[in-house]
């Protein structure tokens, strides 16, 4: 394995370097924000929890501060996007460079089989990517633990996808998909562009299916909204219930809740208004959702690797 890792480094040091620099910068950013928040939390615990930013700790389960609203958001978004970006950067040139520089013409006949050749190219780069991404994954976990100190991060959807194993595992389908695009196109820069779009769609799809991993439950009535009870749960949608308990459409609810003072009609009684209801996946089921998505990511990675193998086997080396 060591020669394969060494070869991967020599062939892709620019790409590995770029991903590593991004991972280290994001991790450093996460740890810096964590240290700022930790200092603030220590002050809050030593003193009182009734003044800002400590007041929100008892109200919302988090401390509000300039850093927690700006840099923290950027860092979390960056860590969340990193596995997809790393997948494109590491995966797209994997086969396309060999095809573009016509070294596949020599490399493929010299290898015992193309499957073996691909194995020794894909596995080391995926392994390096997974190791590099483990750093921001852990930093994201530390940041989340400090950002929401009143809830267990192992039972909370806060920062979902920007911490823990999902940051690492999302690389697998991304790198396989990007390598597949590179194999089909056979040129590096076009592969990066097309793989960027493909992986972007994958990432978007992943966001969309999040609420579908488990059946949401009727979590809370918006009218008696208590943030501390719902913090950490995954919001799915808001539906509207009539006062007699039946579900009504959003359009109907909004129409009934709207009132034009110039219309001359009497103001409707608030007691007759529809009630907005939050549907959520409870925070206690975070682990279950992570396991399901992890299994799906590994499965998708394997499926795409299989397709990649078929593409490499059938491709002309030019």
């Amino acid at each position, binding site marked *: 394995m060591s020669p394969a890792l060494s070869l991967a480094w020599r062939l892709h040091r*620019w*790409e590995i370097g*770029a991903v590593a620099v991004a991972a280290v910068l994001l991790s450093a950013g996460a740890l810096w924000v964590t240290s700022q928040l930790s200092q603030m939390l220590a*002050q*809050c615990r*030593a*003193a*009182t929890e009734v*003044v*800002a*930013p*400590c007041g929100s700790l008892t109200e919302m389960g988090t401390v509000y501060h300039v850093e927690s609203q700006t840099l923290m958001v950027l860092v979390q978004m960056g860590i969340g996007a990193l596995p997809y970006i790393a997948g494109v*950067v590491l995966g797209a*040139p994997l086969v396309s*460079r060999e095809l573009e520089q016509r070294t596949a013409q020599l490399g493929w006949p010299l290898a015992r089989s193309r499957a073996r050749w691909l194995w020794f190219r894909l596995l080391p780069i995926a392994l390096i990517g997974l190791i590099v991404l483990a750093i921001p994954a852990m930093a994201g976990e530390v940041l989340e633990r400090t950002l929401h100190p009143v809830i267990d991060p192992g039972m909370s959807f806060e920062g979902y996808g920007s911490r823990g194993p999902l940051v690492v595992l999302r690389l697998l389908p991304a790198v396989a998909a990007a390598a597949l695009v590179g194999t089909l196109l056979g*040129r*590096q*820069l*076009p592969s*990066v*562009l*097309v793989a960027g779009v493909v992986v972007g769609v994958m990432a978007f799809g992943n966001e969309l299916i999040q609420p579908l991993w488990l059946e949401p439950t009727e979590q809370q009535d918006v009218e008696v909204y208590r943030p501390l009870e719902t913090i950490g749960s995954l919001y799915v949608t808001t539906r509207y219930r009539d006062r007699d308990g039946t579900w009504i459409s959003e359009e109907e609810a909004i*129409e009934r*809740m*709207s*009132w*034009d*003072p*110039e*219309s001359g009609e009497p103001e409707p009684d608030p007691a007759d208004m529809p009630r907005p209801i939050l549907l959520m996946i409870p925070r206690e089921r975070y682990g279950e959702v992570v396991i399901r998505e992890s299994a799906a990511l590994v499965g998708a990675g394997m499926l795409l690797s299989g397709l990649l193998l078929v593409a490499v086997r059938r491709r002309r080396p030019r």
Partner: protein
Amino acid sequence: MLSAARVTIKQHRFEVIAAVLAAVAATVLGASIALRIDALDVSLDCLDRVLASQDGFSAGQECFALVREGSTILGETFLTGEGTVALSIMGVLPFLLGLVGGVPIVARELEARTAQTAWSLSASRVRWLAHQVGPIALVLGTVMILAALVAVPVADASVAWGRSASSLIGLHGPLAVGRAFAAFGLGLMLGALLGRALPATFLGIAISVALLFAVGIVRDAWTASLEPGVIADFSPQTGEYSVSPRAVTTGWAVVAPDGTLLSSEEARDVAASAGVPPASPDDVQDIPALTWYEENGYVLLPIGVSDEMALGWAPYDGLIFGLVGALSVAATFVVVNRRRPT
């Protein structure tokens, strides 16, 4: 001349097609949004009433429904001005177009080792570079100008729907084209320096992000240097102050009962001279001073600059990105003239 341009475009057809498709997609999206917003025919009076109301409902059902539909078309959550799809795309498009178009022009020749032949066959390297850059710049420039022009009515609609015009600097019109020029120049120069398309693209992305970040910091400092004023209006109906729409907040100040505007420090000195004790170290809000202000008719208000004042940054934005583009293109000619063709 035309056949040479055709060869250049053919050499980089994938990048040119990808960039043109992205620009056309942004143009179509922008045009669709502008036309649908125009078709709604929402009056300024209706928009102002909804913006001035707390929840929108009191502006009247018909008016609120129209504004709400406009918000949906603009891709915004209710009147927050965030998530405008078309303008978000315009934030990325100039850099995408510029880098994708600029990087491979020299880098690909060096990477494929064809520069040796091309440069020796041409009368001069400068002329060779000009012939390579010209056709691509013409095609990408045209589609970029088109996308930037179509984004103008979308930006105008966003401003009418409550977003500040100063937050849209560089996302439409000539300034968006200026950004594309800067990215194109950067990509061209990095491709010539590194001689490899992919690393040059990644480095170009990193430098573009860093440049945007740096310009943002300079812009914040420039905004903070402007003479601030109170950006909240007093409502006799509610008896409360509300922050003026589209204003840019730069800090806080205190209005004395006689109407004098005091800085936070000056107001604290007044409170201290009246016997208010200093805040305890863990009291970041300075509760004693806040209580004294309230009891003595002092009002804590946000200060900042109007949207019109903040728009004064626009020429500087154009100047910075224009200079980056011009210097990068000039540097590329120097690099190509002096570089080894391998």
